């Protein structure tokens, strides 16, 4: 009880005496949290959108002729030879016509003059969830193209390609900004605490002489680190949330962005970022005070 009373008094003194550098550290920590969380938020939203895209991902192999049952069996065999797939669906000319008609709904009367076999037959291949990497899909589509009777393979190539590269880029940005967060948070806090220690050298020296335990000397600095990490990350994340609200408000409504259905980071990830930032800042402060207590 008295231990904590004394410790918190010391924290107050430190904050009071070095508040300018404390403020700088606090701003740096919040800014790095903001930058990291910003990219991370975009990243998770991209992944979400990617999932939604790839849920619908299917390769459509257009055929020259309706395959007979024997031929279907052979094709199935060949596709499965390349890799296991989730689903193979044969769509005959007639079925294609039916589908198209249902899609048109009320307007289906435009089809009345068309021959019922004007649409090509096709195979719809749904790859396994685990095989949906960009390169695999590409290889798979080339293989499907070589099937007997195949005319063309479609899966929204351009989309998938662009999306794939963008996600790769974001991964790199997230890793870089994460590193930035780790470096700035740890070093800035270590630096401020070192500054505080320099300013209070006489006092810390005296505390040791009158028999202060190491934990008594260390605790105020650790608390400072924890406070920096906590407030810095909370402010950084709050700023990001404000930004997020603003973007959602201004870009809401139908449009291409709707694919992304912007969502904020789940609470568990917010907690992870906050505790990660606290851990880093305490680490920074611990390393500084350790050096001092050594001798």
């Amino acid at each position: 009880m008295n231990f904590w009373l004394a410790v918190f008094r010391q924290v107050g003194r430190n904050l009071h005496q070095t508040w300018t550098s404390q403020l700088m550290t606090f701003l740096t920590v919040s800014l790095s949290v903001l930058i990291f969380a910003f990219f991370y938020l975009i990243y998770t939203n991209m992944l979400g959108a990617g999932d939604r895209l790839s849920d619908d991902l299917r390769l459509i192999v257009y055929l020259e002729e309706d395959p007979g049952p024997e031929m279907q069996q052979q094709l199935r065999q060949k596709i499965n030879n390349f890799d296991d797939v989730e689903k193979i669906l044969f769509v005959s000319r007639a079925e294609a016509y039916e589908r198209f008609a249902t899609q048109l709904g009320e307007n289906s009367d435009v089809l009345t003059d068309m021959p019922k076999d004007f649409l090509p037959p096709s195979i719809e291949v749904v790859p396994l969830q685990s095989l949906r990497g960009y390169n695999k899909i590409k290889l798979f589509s080339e293989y499907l193209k070589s099937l007997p009777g195949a005319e063309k393979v479609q899966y929204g190539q351009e989309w998938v390609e662009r999306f794939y590269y963008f996600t790769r880029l974001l991964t790199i940005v997230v890793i870089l900004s994460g590193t930035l967060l780790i470096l700035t948070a740890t070093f800035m806090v270590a630096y401020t605490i070192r500054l505080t220690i320099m300013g209070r050298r006489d006092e810390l020296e005296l505390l040791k002489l009158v028999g202060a335990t190491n934990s008594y000397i260390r605790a105020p600095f650790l608390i400072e680190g924890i406070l920096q990490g906590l407030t810095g990350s909370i402010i950084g994340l709050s700023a990001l949330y404000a930004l997020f609200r603003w973007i959602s408000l201004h870009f809401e409504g139908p449009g291409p962005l709707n694919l992304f259905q912007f969502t904020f980071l789940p609470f568990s990830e917010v907690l992870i970022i906050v505790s990660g930032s606290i851990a880093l800042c305490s680490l920074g402060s611990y390393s500084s005070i350790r050096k001092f207590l050594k001798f």
Partner: protein
Amino acid sequence: MAENENTENTMIEMIKVSRIYEPNITALSDISLSVGTGEMFFLIGRSGAGKTTLLKLICNMEVPSKGLIEVAGYDINQLKGNDLAHLRQKIGVAYQDFKLLGDRTVAENIAIAMEVSYKKPRAIKQRVKDLLEQLQLVEKHNTITNELSRGEQQRIALARAVANSPRLILVDEPTGNLDASTTEQVMELLNRSRLAGATIVIATHDSSLYRQSKHRVLELRNGTIHSLTEGDQP
């Protein structure tokens, strides 16, 4: 704090202790000495004789180049971390250069010694008030120590040394800046601590402190023991 049987009556035990400062200044050589629990012990000698060095060795501010030092039964140079901290809480030191925190008030400076052993804030306040009364410095309670005179600073350093009721009190030149009547107050304070059971070692130039007393007096000369008078105190 537990003590060994045979050291129950010995607070400080030094065996063949030397302290050599780099490159070759021999501050102390081959000092063997034993100070009993509850004793008041005087350390005298010319400037540079090694008095301060001896006190620093006893409170582990300096380490001996050779020899063994035991305080309250503990080999003080083997103690580390919390054990050393807890022993230091039981040793009050009034340094020759005071080591006061110049930007803090008198009360805060005295309180530090008690805060490190987590005394209750109310107890600390009361003790600080009592000490300042005994030293007639009550009106300086909230003064920044940098603004005090040397003599006042010296007494604050002493007050901090005795504040936590330590079992061993080391005092380095306690009266160098004081007039006769203030000196008397200081000695009274130290005597009161001794009667409460503390062992006290005083390094001084001031012969009036020990001349008429019955306490033992050790004279150092060039880092060696020149003489040790027998007192009739335990």
